């Protein structure tokens, strides 16, 4: 079944936090900064997997995030 927007976001946040250095928490007043951070990390991930680099969470990007994989981060920790 298609995932709801919130589930998609939470999958993406979890993936980017663990593998692309997205900061874990952001205060409510820094929503804009958090969104820009998320776009940046999404771009890095899309670039790594040679996907279309948009900084947006599209279906193709989400599919890659759901694949079984190694837990070592793709960017230097």
């Amino acid at each position: 079944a298609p995932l709801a927007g919130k589930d998609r976001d939470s999958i993406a946040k979890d993936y980017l936090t663990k593998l692309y250095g997205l900061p874990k928490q952001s205060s409510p007043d820094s929503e804009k900064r958090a969104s820009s951070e998320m776009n940046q990390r999404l771009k890095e991930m899309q670039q790594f997997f040679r996907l279309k680099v948009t900084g947006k969470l599209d279906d193709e990007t989400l599919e890659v995030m759901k694949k079984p994989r190694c837990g070592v981060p793709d960017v230097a920790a």
Partner: protein
Amino acid sequence: YSTFQGNYKWKKHALTYRIENYTPDMSVAEVDDSIKRALQVWADVTPLRFSRVNRGTADIMISFAVGDHQDGYPFDGPDGFLAHAFPPFEGLGGDAHFDDDEKFSFRSPEGYNLFLVAAHEFGHSLGLDHSQDPGALMFPTYVYRDIDTFALPKDDVNGIQSLYGPNPDI
């Protein structure tokens, strides 16, 4: 291919490994064989040689664990993260951990083939980072390959030989 930032590599060619525990998914002999062959993949193309120890601390400590196993990188239940390994350095360096919430297999394409997962993780244990080449063993996502005809892809051979050079016996 890519190597870890900071030039992590073993300063010696004779490395030891120890299997600390076993997954219930496979027999002890199957796990032993999968691990041995996964290390041999890298030994075939480099001067690195691996010998097994059954006690004490080995360069590459191998274990099966679930959830938070106290290394700062908790596993996440079935699917998702299958395993992880640390680049070469003292202590935790080189160690490989496998998520025992996965179903590992010996020869079958069902579940996750332990030989393939381990061969990837040992690439990290020796100093390779993830490759962006989708055909490389060091590509981050799991793909089943026929293990009877498995040959280390060229990208991985180039990567590991950039760290240790070629196998002098060939």
